[in-house]
């Protein structure tokens, strides 16, 4: 098993190197010319006003919140899916209870309007 992940580690390391390689090449060969307008933030040619780093709307957070909870629910389904076949009907009912509670959460979020983009 460690061998498997050793392979994955080598894949990630060499892969990062191969992705960085073109960046090294352009750093070596690309032309350089300096005039300040070129390094302006692109805003369709209009001078930039203020920073982009400002406060955003809370609705993005509401969606990612519901996402995190559901993502966590799904991780419990993976081990279940692997063994369910061997455990018989009990596994099905156990999972049904789990999924019903999940759907309750979805229904609650739906009713409270957490799934509306308002």
């Amino acid at each position: 098993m460690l061998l498997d992940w050793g392979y994955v580690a080598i894949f990630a390391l060499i892969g990062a190197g191969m992705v960085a390689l073109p960046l090294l090449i352009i750093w070596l060969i690309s032309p350089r010319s300096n005039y300040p307008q070129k390094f302006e933030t692109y805003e369709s040619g209009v001078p930039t006003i203020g920073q982009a780093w400002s406060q955003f709307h809370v609705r993005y957070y509401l969606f990612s919140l519901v996402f995190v909870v559901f993502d966590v629910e799904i991780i419990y389904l993976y081990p279940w899916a692997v063994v369910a076949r061997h455990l018989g009907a009990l596994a099905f009912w156990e999972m049904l209870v789990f999924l019903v509670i999940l759907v309750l959460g979805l229904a609650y979020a739906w009713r409270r309007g957490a799934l509306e983009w308002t």
Partner: protein
Amino acid sequence: MSGEAVVFYLLAAVTLGSGAVIVTSGNIVHAAAALVPALLGVTGLYILLNAEFVAGIQVLIYAGAITVLILFAIMLTEGGTGLGGRQRNEQTAVGAAVAAAMAALLIAVAVRTNWAPPAAGATLPSYTPGAIGQSFLGRNILVFEGTSIVLLVSLMGAIMIARRED
């Protein structure tokens, strides 16, 4: 030094190094971005400990979901505009002393305790997803169903808190 030990020290260095960035960086977005290598380092440690399923979950939940949540929260509050602001309170020296004392205490306990050696001849079982599923649906069924209720409650609570009261 065996290959495993080399990998262990590398992963520990990555984890603790990024941890130090998280703790000291004055820019909170840098701190949040440094969470990713720290969490991936911990993932590597799990793999060295033969816990590949936990490692997969660590990447999926911590790196893929919680970090996104944290980045969103940063952008929704100050959006990184408060970058110049003071990030530490007045008790930095005291805090450092407390943390160092805590680390010293924990390390002393870990090093000086005479941990029982693993029973001779005991082979590690393979912690496959299947084995974890067996355990969840068998002995730990209450934990399994209880988790879903905890998740439901925290979903309801978080929605209630985060929504604008209108």
